[in-house]
């Protein structure tokens, strides 16, 4: 057997397949199942990541036609630089999460059987890998549906809770609406490739070769953008995301937020840059506008959350927004033939996708650790955990710093590159774009500053201060597999932050292929330590120097100040002379975000109510008050409620849709696809 990315990948898929098939036989030995199952997924993921890395580093493209699929419609596989990159994104995080899962899923032992979790988890990873690999519309949609269906069941894992059932159903509806849009988009492209006469156009290769008339191209783009946006949780199609991600088991949330959203990004990049290829500037503007909208509104929602996992889920909306901003910029630059700039923007976006996978995975794993230890997701009932969970707290903090885009961690690098792309927008010679795009940069700055606020809140309320809330039982640090999984993610956050020039050099083939320009040469033109996207006179950033510089000053200061044996005396908190201090006397999560809630309140449906008890008492001597705060998504009422109501009605009519057997669901999907393909 020759050793190539293709063969490594095959091994990875075989492992996953083996796991799916053998898991039911291990049903009786749950503990063993967890250990073996997640070890297998870990190995499979690592193999996939390795294959991807190799592909990208080698700069080679592999294509394969599988003897599978429907008659006359064989599956096409293609492993190129873009696919390789996403294989790394998916595989790497799936590897970390799988190791984490070995420890995490043990928490369910004794509560419920985890066989389905293991099976669907493996299917989920396989689905994501296949999405990235598929080279025809048919396989793409099949794997897309595998991914969607397996996550549907994963969200439904703890199905006794009504919120899980609700979230899963909502997810299913949105995923399906999105899938149909994608299907239609492929339909248009495939149809035009062969003049609406046969099926031959269904391969991406055929689509690539076709030059679409501008109207049809726009329609295909809009449909694809809509479909992928629904998957990625782009505002206003985001509402399912903060419902579904938090209720899934945390290892699944980590994958859903960390990498499943990225498959949609992959889809957009694939369709726009690879399959369609040339496009007018307004496509990019559209992507940019929705990206900005998602970035700002997503993070504002995140700041408002009191539920730790919901906060993380909303921040994924923001990060997807940032990736879309870069892609939008790349599209605009590309449409004006500013190739190096397009390359810069595109790489910034993809880099951010990789970074987001790492830190969002890390943060969801951290949130999982907190829930594992405390059985509590509501931050108002958490606090002071830094003393009980020293490992988790440090790792979670690294995630928070990274996601707040602070140097020297990875989030900053990709956002900084995006800013640099923005700063180059004056080279466009369309006055209106020149004037408007900088405002986008300001919105991006707003969203990243808000992210810092959101994660100061997330870390500060959860881990610092005193324990809050009624249940103050003892908590323990989580087990080793969980710590190792998180630690590896944290280390990759640091490495991706400190060594950006190498990452960019590695990613350069993607830019070359999709935009026709490279930036690695100029980016490391000043030496590997300095990241200089254009030229070092223009802008430069050196994470290694910053990191080392801060470290040196901190150490020197510390040593100098400790030459004198100064004592540290521990004393009770300053209580203003009032001795009876309680844990109610510390800031709360809702309070932390109150100023932002006031300032940006017009974007939300904020409802506050103070009631005096007993009612009718003179205000000078009340007995107590009750306060209630509800912050709701305005989009919910405008957009979703009608759709949900309608689809509930439809599902009641269809009746058996909800019965929850995967086969039925898959058949249903296949039929839909085939009918639509025929129709097109």
């Amino acid at each position, binding site marked *: 057997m020759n050793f190539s990315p293709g063969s490594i990948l095959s091994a990875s898929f075989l492992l996953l397949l083996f796991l799916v098939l053998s898991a039911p036989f291990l049903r009786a030995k749950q503990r063993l199942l967890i250990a073996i199952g997640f070890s297998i997924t870990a190995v499979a993921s690592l193999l996939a990541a390795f294959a991807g890395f190799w592909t990208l580093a080698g700069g080679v493209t592999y294509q394969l036609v599988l003897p599978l699929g429907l008659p006359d419609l064989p599956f096409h596989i293609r492993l190129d630089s873009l696919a390789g990159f996403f294989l790394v994104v998916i595989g790497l995080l799936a590897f970390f999460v799988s190791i984490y899962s070995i420890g995490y899923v043990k928490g369910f032992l004794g509560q419920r059987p985890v066989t389905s979790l293991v099976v669907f988890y493996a299917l989920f990873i396989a689905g994501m890998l296949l999405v990235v690999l598929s080279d025809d519309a048919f396989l793409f949609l099949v794997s897309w549906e595998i991914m969607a269906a397996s996550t549907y069941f994963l969200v439904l894992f703890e199905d006794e809770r009504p919120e899980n059932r609700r979230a899963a159903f909502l997810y299913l509806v949105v995923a399906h609406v999105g899938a149909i849009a994608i299907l239609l988009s492929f339909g248009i492209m495939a149809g035009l490739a062969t003049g609406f006469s046969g099926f031959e156009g269904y391969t991406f290769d055929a689509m690539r070769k076709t030059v679409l008339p501008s109207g049809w191209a726009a329609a295909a783009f809009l449909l694809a953008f809509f479909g992928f946006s629904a998957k990625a949780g782009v505002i206003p199609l985001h509402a399912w995301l903060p419902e579904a991600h938090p209720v899934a088991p945390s290892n699944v949330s980590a994958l859903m937020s960390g990498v499943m959203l990225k498959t949609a990004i992959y889809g957009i990049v694939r369709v726009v840059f690879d399959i369609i290829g040339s496009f007018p500037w307004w496509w990019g503007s559209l992507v940019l506008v929705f990206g900005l909208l998602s970035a700002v509104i997503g993070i504002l929602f995140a700041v408002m959350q009191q539920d730790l996992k919901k906060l993380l889920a909303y921040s994924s909306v923001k990060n997807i927004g940032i990736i879309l901003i870069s892609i939008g910029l790349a599209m605009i630059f590309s449409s004006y033939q500013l190739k190096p700039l397009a390359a810069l923007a595109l790489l910034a976006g993809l880099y951010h996708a990789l970074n987001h996978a790492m830190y969002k995975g890390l943060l969801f794993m951290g949130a999982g650790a907190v829930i594992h230890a405390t059985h509590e997701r509501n931050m108002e009932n958490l606090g002071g955990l830094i003393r009980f969970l020293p490992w988790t707290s440090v790792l979670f903090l690294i995630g928070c710093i990274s996601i*707040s885009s602070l140097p020297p961690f990875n989030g900053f690098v990709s956002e900084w590159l995006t800013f640099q792309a923005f700063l180059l927008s004056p080279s466009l010679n369309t006055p209106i774009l020149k004037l408007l795009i900088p405002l986008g940069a300001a919105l991006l700055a707003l969203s990243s*500053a808000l992210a810092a*606020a959101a994660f100061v809140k997330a870390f500060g309320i959860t881990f610092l201060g005193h324990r809050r809330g009624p249940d103050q039982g003892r908590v323990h640090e989580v087990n080793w597999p969980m710590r190792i999984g998180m630690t590896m993610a944290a280390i990759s956050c640091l490495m991706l932050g400190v060594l950006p020039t190498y990452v960019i050099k590695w990613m350069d083939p993607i830019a070359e292929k999709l935009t026709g320009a490279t930036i690695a040469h100029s980016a490391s033109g000043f030496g590997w330590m300095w990241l200089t996207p254009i030229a070092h006179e223009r802008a430069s950033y*050196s994470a290694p120097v910053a990191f080392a510089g*801060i470290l040196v000053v901190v150490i020197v200061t510390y040593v100098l100040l400790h030459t004198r044996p100064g004592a540290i005396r521990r004393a009770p908190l300053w209580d203003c002379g009032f001795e009876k201090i309680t*844990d109610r006397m510390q800031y709360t999560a809702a309070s932390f975000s109150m100023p932002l809630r006031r300032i940006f309140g017009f974007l939300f449906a904020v409802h506050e109510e103070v009631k005096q008890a007993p009612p009718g008492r003179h205000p000078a001597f009340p007995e107590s008050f009750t306060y209630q705060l509800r912050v709701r998504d305005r989009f919910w009422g405008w957009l979703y409620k009608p759709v949900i109501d309608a689809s509930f009605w439809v599902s009641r009519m269809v009746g058996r849709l909800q019965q929850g057997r995967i086969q039925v669901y898959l058949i249903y999907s296949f039929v839909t696809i085939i009918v639509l393909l025929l129709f097109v």
Partner: protein
Amino acid sequence: MKIHPFLIEMVQIAVLLFAAPLFAGWVKMVKCWSQGRTAPSLFQPVRDIRKLLSKDVVLAENASWIFRFTPYLVFGVTVLAGGIIPIISTDLPLAATADVIALVALFAIARFFTALAGMDIGTAFGGMGSSREMTIASLAEPAMLMAIFAVSLASKSTSLSQMVLVVSQGYSILQPSLAFALLAFILIALAETGRVPVDNPATHLELTMIHEAMVLEYSGRHLALIEWAKMMKLFLFVVLGISAFFPWGIAVNDDLAGILAAPAYLVMKLGLAAVGLVLIETGLAKMRIFRVTEFLGSAFLFATLGMLSFFILE
């Protein structure tokens, strides 16, 4: 005669460490005069730092490592930032470490940890300070970016050394975009350094504090580092303004004459900047916290107008 850049870098950091408290003392002095009071000595802040350094630390019982680590980090970040901003010369080995955007992010990491330290001990005041600080920071950030954008249009760069080079070579403050950007920068700097219309560094009222509320529980050497870093931050923002808008006098090629003349220019410009700062602080009351939105909104407006007027008028 050439002087080695590393030497200049060392000198610059030394200047930063010792000039910052003196500058704080000078601001205090001018302020006292403007209010008709007798001023404390110029060296009072230095003495304060020395006194704090020699005192023991009293730590809250539940303070975690974050609380103890933060002063060192804040100090370290600020010193590093001081090595990047051209104070007396543009030829600095550290200059390429960060452009303006990265510099802002360096300050942001100090703020991030200060806010966490405020929440670490779990008091109402600490959390309140953190919440306010993060709110104001998130409003200041877009304005700051717009100001950077406006300035970078003229110099085609976000690297500070490059900005100094371009602006000092004939580019004049008469340029509308720079004038607007300067206006925006002043407002942002007031907010970022916690000066009067936004925050009151001299207050003792816990309920109204922003920065002070976060660091209320610090003592001894920790407090000394925090205070010192705060003075340096003020100094650096003033110097940043000087570098970006009034760079004349900063040595652009490393000959001895230029470098020796640079401190004289610097002292003069700092002296004037302090007077300007005091005029603002004496003439204005602290604004209500939700008015800061409008304050920073107008900073954003100025910066945007600066950016627009670059395209429209230049």
